[in-house]
């Protein structure tokens, strides 16, 4: 094993290639700080901040602890599921079955509770069910190598169907009062829901996993090129499998949250939530083609959609408009980068044409090669 020498301090000099050829002058790229401040996810964060400021000034009753409370309570399911979804989309895959897993969990929770099981046992079994559902997805996608889009469209229907089988058209509502009260309680006068502590912990977990671990590095590499990832010893199948398991587990948590927050276990809970999650993730700057995206950007994306919806609702705008706005935002977030690139290209081309029309022989921005 080569662990003994750190690569940066290997004493033997590596053969240095012929150095008679000078380096081309460095193209003026953006420096580290500028790159971060103008990145796609930073822009989402700016838009979020700008919108919050606007809303706080322009919309009466927006800037209040009540707003904070309801807004966060509303976005928590999306926020939760968006975390593993970000990692999955970064690898170039997708999971459409998340809302159905949440619904299945909710249905299971109602039936088990109605059957008289201890509430903590019920919660544990629900979480296991979510993990099991995730393993099923993971097995089909990672082990058998089936396309995730097809598999999770299938399990989207399958898990929702199972939810209906489990609980039928019934609803279970008599969950323990202290528990349901806890799920809507706030941290003092801030208006921040107590459960946010847990949500933040999950966010930090996924953020660290994606940005600061070798596993996370591997996900970006996989998102760009599975074959190249394979050549550097990344176990593509295993990574994918665990991502779907994580997605199943977090979806189950979202299902549990949903049930307790609305004090209602039904088979159609959280239906359609997968679209809200994917919309928020893409708005947060994650590339649907894989390989790009950050957790802070996604959090901003989720909060942006959430607060926009909330503000519109405060302004008594109907749900139809809300859905339309969400759809437009999603399309805009996917289209915006291409428009940005086109504009940059056009401006650059114009500049270059001008510099060439002045017809200086070396007016190219690149130093002429030293050896002529």
């Amino acid at each position: 094993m080569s662990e003994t020498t750190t690569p940066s301090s290997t004493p033997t000099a590596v053969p240095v290639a012929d150095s008679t050829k000078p380096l081309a002058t460095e193209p003026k790229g953006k420096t580290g700080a500028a790159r971060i401040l103008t990145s796609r996810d930073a822009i989402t964060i700016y838009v979020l901040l700008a919108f919050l400021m606007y809303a706080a000034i322009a919309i009466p009753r927006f800037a209040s602890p009540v707003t904070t409370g309801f807004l966060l309570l509303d976005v928590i399911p999306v926020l939760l599921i968006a975390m593993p979804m970000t990692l999955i989309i970064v690898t170039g895959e997708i999971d459409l079955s998340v809302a159905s897993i949440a619904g299945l969990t909710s249905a299971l929770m109602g039936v088990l509770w109605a059957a008289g099981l201890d509430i903590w046992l019920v919660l544990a079994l629900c979480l296991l069910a979510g993990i099991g559902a995730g393993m099923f997805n993971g097995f089909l996608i990672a082990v058998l190598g089936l396309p995730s889009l097809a598999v999770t469209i299938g399990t989207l229907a399958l898990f929702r169907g199972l939810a209906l089988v489990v609980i039928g058209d019934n609803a279970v509502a008599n969950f323990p009062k202290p528990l349901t009260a806890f799920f809507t309680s706030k941290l003092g006068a801030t208006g921040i829901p107590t459960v946010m502590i847990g949500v933040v912990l999950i966010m930090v977990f996924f953020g660290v996993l994606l940005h600061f671990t070798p596993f996370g590095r591997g996900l970006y590499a996989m998102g760009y090129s599975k074959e190249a990832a394979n050549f550097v010893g990344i176990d593509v199948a295993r990574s994918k499998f665990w991502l779907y398991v994580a997605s199943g587990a977090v979806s189950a948590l979202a299902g549990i949250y949903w049930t307790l927050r609305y004090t209602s276990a039904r088979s159609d809970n959280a239906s359609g939530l997968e679209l809200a999650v994917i919309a928020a993730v893409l708005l947060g700057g994650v590339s649907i083609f894989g390989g790009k995206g950050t957790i802070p950007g996604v959090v901003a994306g989720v909060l942006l959609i959430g607060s926009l919806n909330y503000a519109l609702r405060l302004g008594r705008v109907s749900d139809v408009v809300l859905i339309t706005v969400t759809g437009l935002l999603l399309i805009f977030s996917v289209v915006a980068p291409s428009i940005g690139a086109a504009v940059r290209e056009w401006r650059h081309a114009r500049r270059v044409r001008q510099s060439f029309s002045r017809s200086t022989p070396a007016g190219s921005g690149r130093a002429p090669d030293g050896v002529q």
Partner: protein
Amino acid sequence: MLSLTGAAKTFGPVVALADGTVEIRAGEIHALVGENGAGKSTLVKILAGLYHPDSGDFRLSGEPVHFRSVAESKAAGISVIYQEPTLFPDLTVAENIFIGRQPKGRSRLISRAEMRRQASELFGRLGVPIDPSRAAEGLSIADQQIIEIAKAISLDARVLVMDEPTAALSGVEVERLFAVARALRDKGTGILFISHRFDEVFDLCDRITVMRDGRYIATHRTAEVTVEKIVREMVGRDIGTLFPKAEADIGHTVLKVDGLSRSGVFRDISFDVRAGEIVALAGLVGAGRTEVARAVFGIDPYDSGQVSVEGKPLKARNPQAAIAAGLGFVPEDRRKQGLVMNLSVARNVTLTLRNKFVTAGLINGGKERAAAKEWSKRLQVKAGSQEHAVSTLSGGNQQKVVLAKWLATDPKLLIIDEPTRGIDVGTKSEVHRLISDLAGRGIAILMISSELPEVLGMADRVLVMREGRITAQLDRADADPESVMHAATSSTGVTE
């Protein structure tokens, strides 16, 4: 017939082409040579209508043209054959040729019979037997190129551009391609031929245009110029020996492969590689060399046999175990296998090391950047910044990044598949020197190469493969072009 003068093209701050100038006459084969990054590919993409030049004069038969798309360029009679053709694998050969303009029958529906008839006629004209109704999937790269040429002819192409068509071809296939090219020339087609192989350029072409650093340097008649002069113009300086191989002490056995077989791919492969030794796997394309290397490294499975590193058996089908045992693999296809193209130079260099900068489970960013910088500097990777995507680098620099990535793991054995494919002369000798010095430091090297001079110049031992078997094992002293080619082709001959 076609003339491009002073064409310029920039991408962001990078000037890809400052003065693209070339003139192709009807009925000539015109070579375009230059180092990687000299702007050849950009020039080709302008001809193809893929890029619109920022400035410059582009004329076809004297008329100025401004292509906005590939379709316009094709319609004007320019066809480009790329190194790796992009056929639709599920469609038949004939369907590929007539894609988008299928001959229609009386019922306004596609007439398959007519399509097949026209395709057969095209292949007849080219003198190449390919069945038009077979699927394109599974065709060799050589055959795929022929299909692209057939497509070009069916479009009445007046100018045919071939971008490194021979890079992936074996000797016989190259000859067949040349025969087709000469036949087309004699019928008045103008051909632009881009290659890094001088023997081919001098064998085939009538005139040679040299480019360097995005600029036109000179055009010569092939008969009036020497290889040395062209090389000088390309690099702007004299280069030393093309294939330096320093003497190295040969040590203990690092890799031992014993009776490795995979049904239908390779059979009973046994060899070893010792520390400080360069062993070359020679043979024709398709002889199973890359497949053996992939199986050794654990990318592909094998049916029987054993691989061991320094006496310890290596787990099959497990690249992680191979890397842990001290193996590195520089694959043949940089873009798809060697690099994650959109990731930064730094991230690519440290991808193999991602488990080494970990403190308490987290990556230490400072250490990571320092290591990336260190290794790119040692290998003289020419990049604007460590943070730029590797896709913005030239082929030679990309190969250096791949090498840096593996050298950083401090490997015992490096498998290098086609170390200089698609790399220009100047960088080529840099890469050769690098490999030779690595061997000098005691790293065992298994090199797969289709370039005979490279094999003969670099290797201490040459293993020749043919049709999935090792047919000869030659020491440096015994290896010469004849013995290697004999073992690579030998009695059963080459199948087309």
